[in-house]
């Protein structure tokens, strides 16, 4: 048994040793805004690269980096090269908090870009003192509407439409479509902010489901359970609408269970934006015939649509700077956020400061060029990015085409019961060679 005075002495000694080691590893503070030098701008990303969330979003930072490499090869931002530091947080809040704090305190990034995950980033934002240190948190990749709250997250800018917005627009779409409106509808959702925000949004949209939503824990919906759930729902007459709000692997599990039970044509499938990437679904073994006719909402052009000018520019950049990675909706999302970031950095001027870049987004962000088919809503009072969706139908090749052949975009908000309104938004032309020249 260790005698305790010795153990304590030992602890004191070890403290001293550890103290020396750790002290030597801290960096001195910098005078001007950190992360900016005459030749470089350091940006940081923290998000899941593994697991179910990684399956959906793992390609995002790579897409961002590829775009930044393209910009760096074309003169950078006023001569400064962008250096993106990417951290994997495995979708764990503790890891996200430490990674983000490291990015701010150790790597001294100028700003965070594209941070991903709601339970993770809400903790990381506070832990890394982003508000106190005035670190810009640009284009956060979550559908959690809370990030638009300026008093709680003063340096955060959303980009994705919220899950509540998505649900409201789905509700309106169902109401307005004669083939769908009279049918029964059900929601199968992940038991976290996807599901909860979504349920709230459907309520705001005035939509009632035929039964209470089926919620399952993350990683907790096995094939057997999916089969049980679908069998129960198959007892409902007609052609019920099944709305799936979850990650792609679970969406695939549910669709494959439907294939097994020969229930694919029994339901109208509606995949939420998070788990609805057709390429991934096909790669996970879902049959093309199954996704044929499935409905999905999007706010981007389809990643397979090479006739779209933004998509074709991004595809070129992907081929050149992101070799080995196939271009899909996630890569598109990443590159688009990166393009917004570059425009924000440019608009802040040659004398780049943190306050400056945030002001630039507030005043000019709404007019940035972006691939989105819905408007950006940045202003002095609004931190909301995209706020709308259009509805499409998947075909056997996994291409999303506008429902009924005509593109119809709707915009809305996250908290009111007002119905979504049709939008006449027209995108700005894609910058030449994908390199913005705004100021």
């Amino acid at each position, binding site marked *: 048994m260790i005698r305790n005075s010795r153990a304590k002495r030992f602890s004191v000694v070890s403290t001293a040793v550890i103290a020396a080691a750790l002290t030597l590893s801290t960096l001195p503070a910098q005078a001007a805004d950190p992360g900016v030098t005459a030749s470089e701008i350091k940006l940081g990303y923290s998000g899941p*690269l*593994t*697991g179910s969330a*990684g*399956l959906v979003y*793992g390609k995002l930072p790579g897409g961002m980096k590829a775009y930044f490499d393209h910009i760096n090869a074309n003169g950078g931002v006023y001569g400064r090269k962008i250096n993106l530091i990417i951290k994997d947080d495995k979708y764990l809040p503790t890891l996200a908090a430490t990674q983000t704090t490291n990015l701010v305190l150790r790597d001294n990034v100028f700003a965070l870009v594209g941070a991903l995950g709601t339970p993770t980033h809400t903790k990381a934002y506070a832990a890394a003192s982003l508000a106190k240190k005035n670190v810009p948190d640009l284009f956060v990749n979550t559908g959690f509407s809370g990030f638009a709250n300026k008093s709680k997250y003063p340096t955060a800018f959303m980009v994705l439409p919220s899950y509540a917005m998505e649900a409201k627009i789905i509700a309106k779409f169902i109401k307005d479509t004669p083939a769908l409106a009279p049918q029964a509808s059900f929601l199968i959702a992940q*038991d976290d902010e996807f599901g909860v925000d979504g349920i709230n949004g459907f309520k705001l949209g005035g939509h009632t489901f035929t039964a209470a939503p*089926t*919620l*399952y*824990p993350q*990683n*907790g*919906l*096995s*094939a*057997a*359970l999916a*089969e*049980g*759930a679908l*069998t*129960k729902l198959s*007892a409902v007459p007609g052609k019920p609408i099944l709305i799936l709000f979850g990650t792609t*692997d679970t969406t*695939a*599990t549910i669709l*494959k269970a439907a*294939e*097994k*039970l*020969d*229930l694919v044509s029994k339901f109208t499938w509606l995949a939420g934006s998070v788990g609805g990437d057709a390429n991934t679904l096909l*790669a*996970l*073994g879902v049959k093309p015939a199954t996704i044929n006719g499935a409905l999905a909402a999007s706010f981007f052009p389809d990643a397979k649509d090479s006739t779209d000018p933004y998509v074709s520019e991004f595809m070129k950049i992907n081929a050149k700077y992101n070799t080995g990675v196939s271009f899909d909706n996630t890569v598109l999302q990443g590159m688009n956020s990166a393009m917004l970031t570059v425009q924000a950095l440019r608009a802040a001027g040659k004398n780049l400061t943190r306050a400056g870049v945030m002001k630039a987004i507030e005043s000019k962000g709404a007019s940035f060029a972006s691939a989105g088919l819905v408007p950006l809503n940045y202003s002095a009072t609004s931190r909301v990015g995209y706020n709308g969706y259009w509805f499409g139908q998947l075909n056997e090749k996994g291409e999303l085409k506008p429902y009924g052949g005509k593109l119809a975009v709707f915009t809305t908000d996250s908290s009111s019961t007002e119905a979504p309104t049709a939008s006449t938004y027209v995108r700005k032309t894609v910058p030449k060679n994908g390199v913005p020249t705004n100021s």
Partner: protein
Amino acid sequence: MNQFITAVLTSLSSGAIYALMSISLVLVWRSTRVINFAQAAQAVLTTYIGYEVITRSGSFWLGLIVAVIAGGIIGAGIDILFMREIFKRASTGPIAMIAPVVATTALLGVIYSLIGFIWGISYKTIEAPVSTNGLSIFGSVVAFSPFNLLVLITVTISMVVLTILFQKTNIGLALRASAHAPEISKLSGIKVDAVRTLGWAIAGGAGSLAGMLYIPGSYLYPNSMAVLLVFGFIAAVIGGLDSLFGAVAGAMVLGFAINFSASYVSYKLVFPTAFVILILVLLIKPNGIFSSGKGRRD
């Protein structure tokens, strides 16, 4: 009625899958008195090997055979290179209980990382060797496919074969003796070390079988058997770690509990149900349903 029948069928297929894992965990326990958390990682690793064989040869069965053989070799390798050392050095006191568990857990992490190094982290799929479409009974499609039937049959055969091996053969006797009383076994002339390695090899092979039959119903990525490991362990504990029949029975109990509570109560309760069933069983029988009366002090 349809809901009830479906619940029964899905419980059977779930239970069969948990049984795959619980059998291999009980195998390791019966032959070495170690809870091998790395079992899942070994299973995934050999499934990746099977995946490579399938991709090149187009045959699932060839991949299965290679995977099981690889599983046996890797299991034996882990015992020779790793577990023997641990037992030599950490053999008394609480460290004896905790060291193997921690070591196999660390091994789990190391093997997962190696898989990430070699194959990357993206999701892959393996196609089942037989149809995964539901069987058509009296005109309607039920939630049970030829593949589910294959898994169930495999589990039953494994359980029977392995029970015969352990209870009725000399090798089985040697395995059990080496695990319970190594010193006495040595005196009786049993090569304890070699027998233990054999136990690890058999368990490794069983784990590979589990992986190759589980993955076609799910996806292949480094961490893909994590949930199965947890449920498999809980199932083994419910059934009693000393009984292979218990491993299967425990898995069935767990499968029924989870599927019925999901179907009739809520899908949110998957994990709490497992916990509640486990606690209920252990309150009545602290060593599992099919434990042999008085528990052994391990």
